[in-house]
């Protein structure tokens, strides 16, 4: 670092740099004998004072080069444009305020004070604020990074969302005990669901460490095992004010909460990481309260209908029982029938057998009669008459068998198939031997 540069940078040294000037005077005096020799530390300390006291904190615009964050949380980076670069440091106190580390190549503006790092004799900027791509750039970047991480872990999956209970008895509320959000929530719950008990986990909702406090409050409420549903909430505010709800501790606490969580942060337009992880996102604190409880008016209507629905159910049961009785009777009849049926069958079978026996007995008898009749027929002279023979009988009824039985002029009766013929013998001739 040349004298010329420091003169250019600080053309008007302020009067309190007496110590430096006095030392220089002293050095000039001693050139007579041995030259005055300064230690490196002395010089660096002097230059550091010069630098720090001469330049007020200033905004410097540039591009982030390398960026490293040490274990204690101090951040070391370079800031550059197309021709030059400078070393910068942001100590952990200020670095904690960053929503996220800027990425290399990101256009930023840095508020800081110039100083000299004495141990290395390098000048550097001690940064206290960094803003990127407009005031909200880093917030946006931080939001995107955390959302990507949570998405990759599956914590934003729709399947993870728990269903809200329909009639919660205890509503856990995580918010500030003095904020408008609590008043809004209580007002809605009082109107809609006066039977509810609210259990407040009071917490700061903005500022350093607020996200960890919100997470603890949520965990403490869940640990009581009392709430049926949770509201994590905060009223409207600037991006920085809502920031705690965009931080990892809140996101992880909501994701790990065994009880369904409804978020209601800021206004309609504000979407936070908490909203994305929550089981339900409500646009405002009031909307969150409306989402967790049913409206008493609607519940009351449902209850008013209940007695008639119950009565209808009871009537239905009675009717079913009555028709059930009918079924029992039908069943009984069937059972009786089943018992009677075999007997009936036996009887039927026996009757059939009897009938058949009788029929065949009759048949046999009829057959015998017929046979007998046939025989009788064959013996009867009538059958012979049928064949064309006739029988001659005297008036006295004696059968006239021979020529000797007839005398010429003698009357006799001739019996033919279908009657008698009165006849008179004319002459008789005896037949010769055949």
């Amino acid at each position: 670092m040349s004298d010329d540069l420091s003169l250019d940078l600080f053309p008007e040294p302020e009067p309190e740099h007496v110590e430096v000037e006095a030392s220089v005077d002293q050095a000039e005096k001693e050139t007579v004998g041995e030259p005055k020799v300064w230690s490196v530390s002395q010089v660096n300390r002097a230059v550091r004072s010069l630098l720090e006291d001469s330049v007020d904190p200033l905004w410097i615009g540039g591009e982030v080069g390398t960026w490293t964050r040490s274990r204690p949380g101090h951040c070391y980076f370079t800031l550059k444009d197309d021709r030059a670069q400078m070393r910068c440091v942001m100590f952990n106190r200020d670095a904690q305020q960053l929503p996220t580390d800027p990425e290399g190549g990101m256009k930023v503006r840095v508020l800081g004070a110039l100083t000299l790092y004495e141990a290395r004799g390098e000048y550097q900027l001690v940064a206290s604020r960094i803003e990127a791509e407009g005031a909200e750039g880093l917030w946006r970047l931080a939001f995107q990074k955390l959302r990507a991480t949570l998405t990759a872990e599956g914590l934003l999956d729709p399947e993870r969302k728990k269903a809200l209970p329909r009639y919660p008895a205890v509503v856990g509320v995580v918010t500030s005990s003095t904020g408008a959000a609590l008043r809004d929530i209580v007002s809605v719950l009082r109107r809609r669901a006066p039977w509810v008990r609210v259990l407040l986990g009071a917490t700061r909702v903005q500022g350093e460490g607020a996200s960890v406090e919100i997470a603890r409050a949520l965990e403490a409420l869940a640990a009581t095992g009392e709430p049926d549903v949770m509201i994590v909430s905060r009223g409207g505010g600037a991006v920085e004010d809502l920031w705690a709800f965009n931080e990892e501790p809140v996101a992880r606490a909501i994701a790990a909460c065994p009880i369904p969580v409804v978020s209601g942060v800021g206004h309609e337009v504000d979407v936070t990481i908490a909203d994305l992880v929550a089981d339900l996102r409500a646009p405002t604190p009031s909307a969150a309260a409306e989402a967790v409880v049913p409206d008493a008016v609607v519940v009351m209507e449902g209850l008013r209908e209940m007695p008639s629905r119950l009565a209808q159910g009871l009537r239905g049961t009675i009717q079913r029982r009555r028709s059930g009785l009918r079924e029992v009777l039908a069943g009984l009849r069937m059972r009786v029938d089943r018992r009677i049926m075999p007997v009936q069958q036996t009887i039927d079978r026996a009757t059939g057998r009897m009938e058949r026996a009788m029929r065949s007995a009759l048949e046999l008898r009829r057959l015998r009669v017929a046979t007998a009749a046939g025989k009788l027929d064959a013996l009867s002279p009538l059958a012979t008459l049928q064949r064309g023979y006739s029988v001659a009988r005297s008036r006295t009824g004696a059968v006239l068998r021979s020529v000797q039985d007839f005398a010429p002029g003698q009357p006799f009766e001739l019996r033919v198939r279908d009657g008698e013929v009165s006849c008179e013998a004319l002459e008789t001739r005896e037949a010769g031997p055949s």
Partner: protein
Amino acid sequence: MSDETAREAGSTESVSLEERIARLEEILTRLESDEVALEQALELFEEGIGHVRAAERVLSETQLRVEELLAGGKKKELDVDEP
């Protein structure tokens, strides 16, 4: 909830609104099913009416309670003003 304990619960105040309404729905389902004997149906009906009356009382008479959870699991009643 067994029918025995449920019947007793119909008249006690300690049962939550959610349990009452859930039980009412269960009773309706039972009444609409075939498995219920007449005697049992009558008991269910009476129990249901008890839940309805108790739930109506809860809705019309209770006041919202707000408590703050303190360290060590203690609780403190809070008065929260309307905005």
